[in-house]
């Protein structure tokens, strides 16, 4: 069914190579000299950069761009000495503000690098004020989109219609910008401004009625919805499109949602019944069924009329709708309706979630007596167990034994419901109050055995990954993770299973999975191209998805997983004595981008917010009772940002330079989610940065003496070892620590730590050899109780860390 991946390249190129003005405008071609200057800056060859820019200024003494470039070179050469007031401010406040594409582009970049986020887009606004033309306005619009600045997006699009050859289209851009601003950034608006912007956009769109297509109609409906009190208008305008005279009128799902929502607001039951009947003729939709039943009842129509509609199809939705019908007309669910549903769905995985919604209206005796009459089987039995909620573990064991043979007989691509039974047993073994190494080992043995039989089952595999990581054999967790074939945007949501704290749990830069995190997952490269796609959506007047696309772009820009990978890669490079230049450069530019996003989202830079896209739902319902084994992966925003700061601290301690980002945020993040070793390391680096290496000698000695004890088991063993080793290696490499006693103490601690490595790991491995698994349970289930690959996993970890 997925046949298009090979065609994708063609399709993608077709989209981005379209000869749109927007595509041409995103690049700012420069003469050779300009490029050479920027290249020289990137290579930190400032002598050449200064010579070239001087030549450029001489060639065009009245041009603005060379003057800005000249200031930019000075800034990049020495940020501390650069004076905005003397250098750039006069250019910005001149009678004739910069207004050519190159100048504006460079100024925007320059101001962002200066941390003047509020001014970066103002340069476009000023240029437009003085020299209004579509080109500048369009550049302003697209830059606002890249920066995710909805306020400027709104302002720029407001000015475009009078300059555009297609003002109609631009009215919609403005309306959509207003919708985005109000929906995603309402915090930036006063109520007065909110209403004003909505009214202006509403007037613009009203002036271009009638709408040409559904996309335009959708924007108008969004706008009306935000204006409030416009439900009637929405209904009147959508109704002919959705339920016109022509039998084959459009079935647009956005419009379906608008009309249902607003008929409900208006309590217009007559038309609700009509619309639902029309739509139900083409869509099997539970929402529509429920609204139809409610309105039928509200109109005092007979139950028979509603029942007639429910005879249209025989599907899950329709059988379940009889519950709604019963409740609306009789106040209780009849046994007949229950039988009708269960007779077809008692042996389907969805049965439990469906019935659960109505559980308060169904008495247990009815439910179980109906179930009892139905033929047993794996899924039926699982559903009965879910409903009963009693003796879950023992019953799960019994059912697993009873149905074990069915796992062998199923297709590989099918998922066996036995995984539900097994996960009940696993949950009991590793829930917080029961968690021991023995239980974790038993759980691994069970899962390993099961996975071989139900090889594509990801629900069990994710728990295997977690357990391997918990007991401290990440190499085996990575093997399992590779089987999931995680890629593209999925990486952002699921990689946390193995990428959390990878630098201290499994510092292997050659691992194929981890090396991807180090170079940066592909999804973030893709994310960088999203503004280009969003621009195309505007250009093509494809409006319905734009707000969602912008939201996704924002979520990936500020993703916790992305930040985790960056900070972990930097910590790994310290541990492995690798070069950090490129990684740090990336960290600084991403930090700036994060500040910019936050400024544009909250209007201030005194707080930084990440977005947590990690999917913990796939671990439910077990995860809530098994928090201990998940601790390695349960990092939060504070932990992640503090990890980024930690790497900047190391950089600044080494250079002795003050870092404005560190100063602003150093105490902003709590250390709650840090392990003891992480907290020790972070406090130590923080103090060294604040007090300077010379002033901290005595304190540093004390701190080294207070180093936390290493854990002797689970993931914490390697983690503690690596965090402490990284910290000591970093201290050892800081030339500004000159105190001889301190230096000697650091080297001694390093030596002691390294000496302890093999023994600690070997002793833990030995502990595993002597572990008594719950063999009776394993044998009862007919599984093998050998977990010898774990020893191999310990050896892999030991080999990796003992030579660091």
């Amino acid at each position, binding site marked *: *069914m*997925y*046949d298009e*991946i090979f065609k*994708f390249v063609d*399709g*993608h190129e077709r*989209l981005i190579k379209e000869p749109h003005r927007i595509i041409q405008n995103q690049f700012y071609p420069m003469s050779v000299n300009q490029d050479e200057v920027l290249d020289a800056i990137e290579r930190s060859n400032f002598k050449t950069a200064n010579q070239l820019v001087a030549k450029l200024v001489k060639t065009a003494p009245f041009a603005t761009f060379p003057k800005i470039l000249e200031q930019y070179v000075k800034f990049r050469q020495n940020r501390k000495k650069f004076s905005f007031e003397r250098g750039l401010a006069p250019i910005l406040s001149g009678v004739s503000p910069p207004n050519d594409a190159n100048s504006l582009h460079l100024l925007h970049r320059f101001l962002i690098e200066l941390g003047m986020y509020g001014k970066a887009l103002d340069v476009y606004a000023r240029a437009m004020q003085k020299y209004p033309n579509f080109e500048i306005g369009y550049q302003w619009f697209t830059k606002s989109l890249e920066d995710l600045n909805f306020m400027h997006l709104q302002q720029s699009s407001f000015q475009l219609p009078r300059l555009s050859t297609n003002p109609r289209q631009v009215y919609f851009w403005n309306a959509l910008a207003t919708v985005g601003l109000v929906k995603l950034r309402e915090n930036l608006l006063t109520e007065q401004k909110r209403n004003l912007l909505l009214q202006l956009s509403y007037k613009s769109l009203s002036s271009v009625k009638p709408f040409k*297509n*559904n996309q335009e109609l959708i924007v108008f409906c969004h706008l009306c919805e935000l204006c409030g009190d416009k439900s009637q208008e929405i209904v009147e305008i959508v109704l002919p499109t959705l339920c016109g005279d022509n039998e*084959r009128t*459009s*079935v647009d*799902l*956005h419009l379906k*949602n608008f009309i249902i929502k607003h008929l409900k607001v208006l309590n217009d039951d007559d038309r609700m019944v009509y619309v639902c009947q029309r739509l139900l003729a*083409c869509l*099997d*939709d*539970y*929402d*529509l069924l429920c609204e139809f039943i409610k309105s039928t009842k509200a109109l005092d129509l007979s139950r028979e009329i509603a029942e007639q509609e429910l005879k249209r199809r025989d*599907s*899950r*939705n329709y059988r379940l709708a009889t519950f709604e019908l019963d409740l609306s007309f009789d106040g209780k669910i009849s046994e007949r309706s229950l039988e009708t549903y269960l007779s077809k769905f008692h042996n*389907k*995985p*969805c049965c439990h*979630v*469906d019935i659960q*919604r109505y559980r308060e209206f169904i008495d247990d005796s009815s439910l179980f007596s109906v179930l009892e009459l139905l033929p047993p089987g794996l899924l039926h039995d699982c559903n009965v167990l879910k409903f009963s909620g009693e003796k879950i573990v023992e019953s799960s064991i019994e059912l697993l034994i009873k149905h074990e043979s069915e796992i062998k007989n199923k297709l590989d*691509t099918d*998922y066996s419901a036995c995984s539900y039974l097994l996960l009940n047993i696993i949950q009991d073994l590793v829930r917080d109050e029961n968690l021991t190494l023995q239980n974790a080992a038993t759980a691994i043995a069970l899962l390993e055995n099961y996975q071989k039989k139900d090889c*594509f089952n990801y629900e069990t595999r994710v728990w295997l990954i977690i357990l391997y990581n918990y007991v401290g054999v990440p190499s085996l967790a990575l093997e399992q993770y590779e*089987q*999931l*074939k*995680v890629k*593209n*945007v*999925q990486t952002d*949501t*699921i990689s946390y299973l193995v990428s959390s704290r990878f630098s201290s749990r499994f510092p292997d830069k050659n691992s194929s999975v981890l090396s991807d995190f180090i170079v940066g997952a592909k999804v973030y490269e*893709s*994310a960088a191209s*999203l503004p280009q*796609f969003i621009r195309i*959506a505007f250009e*093509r007047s*494809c409006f*319905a*998805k734009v707000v*969602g*696309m912008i*939201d*996704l772009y924002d979520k990936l820009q500020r993703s916790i997983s992305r930040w985790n990978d960056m900070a972990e890669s930097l910590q790994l490079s310290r541990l492995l004595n690798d070069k950090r230049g490129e990684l740090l450069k990336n960290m600084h530019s991403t930090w700036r981008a994060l500040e910019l996003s936050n400024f544009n989202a909250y209007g201030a830079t005194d707080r930084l917010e990440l977005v947590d*896209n990690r*999917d913990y*739902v*796939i671990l439910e319902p077990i995860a809530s009772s098994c928090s201990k084994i998940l601790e390695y992966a349960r990092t939060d925003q504070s932990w992640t940002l503090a990890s980024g700061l930690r790497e900047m601290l190391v950089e600044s301690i080494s250079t002795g330079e003050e870092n404005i980002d560190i100063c602003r945020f150093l105490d902003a993040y709590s250390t709650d989610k840090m392990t003891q070793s992480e907290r020790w390391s972070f406090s130590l680096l923080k103090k060294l940065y604040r007090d300077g290496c010379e002033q901290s000698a005595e304190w540093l000695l004390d701190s080294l003496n207070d180093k936390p004890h290493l854990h002797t088991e689970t993931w914490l063993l390697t983690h503690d070892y690596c965090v402490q080793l990284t910290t000591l290696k970093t201290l050892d490499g800081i030339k500004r620590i000159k105190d001889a006693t301190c230096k000697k103490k650091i080297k001694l601690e390093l030596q002691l730590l390294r000496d302890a490595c093999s023994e600690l790991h070997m002793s833990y491995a030995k502990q595993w050899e002597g572990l008594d698994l719950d063999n009776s349970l394993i044998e009862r289930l007919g599984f093998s109780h050998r977990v010898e690959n774990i020893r191999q996993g310990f050896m892999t970890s030991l080999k990796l860390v003992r030579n660091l």
Partner: protein
Amino acid sequence: MTTIQPFEATDLLTLNNINLDILTENFPLEFYFEYLILWPDLFFESRELTKIRPDGQPEISGYMMAKTEGKGPLWHSHITAVTVAPEFRRISLASGLCTALQTITDGEPHNVNFIDLFVKCNNDLAIRLYEKLGYSVFRRVVGYYNSLEDGYPKTLNNIHSNKDAFDMRRAMTRDEGHSIRSDGRKHRCFPHDVKF
């Protein structure tokens, strides 16, 4: 209990219950965006009103990605991906998604002549499902699923049920039967023949 909803870009972050399935493809972001931009109403999902996620949203149980292409009598919609989470399989959800696509593309503004899809020749289960929905085999695309190692097919004589695809079609009324062949399995073509 399912409702059919438009697919939004942010839904890509909550698809693991569906896309962790080993046989479900995870496309690059650009590919999804192309579909969202070019065929916004042909990318939709089923949501389960009985299963609410911690963010308050009903869980996505399946989705449909489709497009329109071709010219004149060959103007049609094509199913790129239709997939359902394991927990919601065997309850005709995929059929429901296919029927919704048929409804949407049979009306304004699409008015297609037929819907087509490709399926591996040895995937009997899926073929039966599509046949139940009114699809029939129009032709066999030899080497459609060839890997890089397999290379491009040189001849139509060598067929492999694991590497070839059936181009299956369901005709709309306006197609007047042009997309139906009773002997579709005997007609063979190269992969480049199915580009529109």
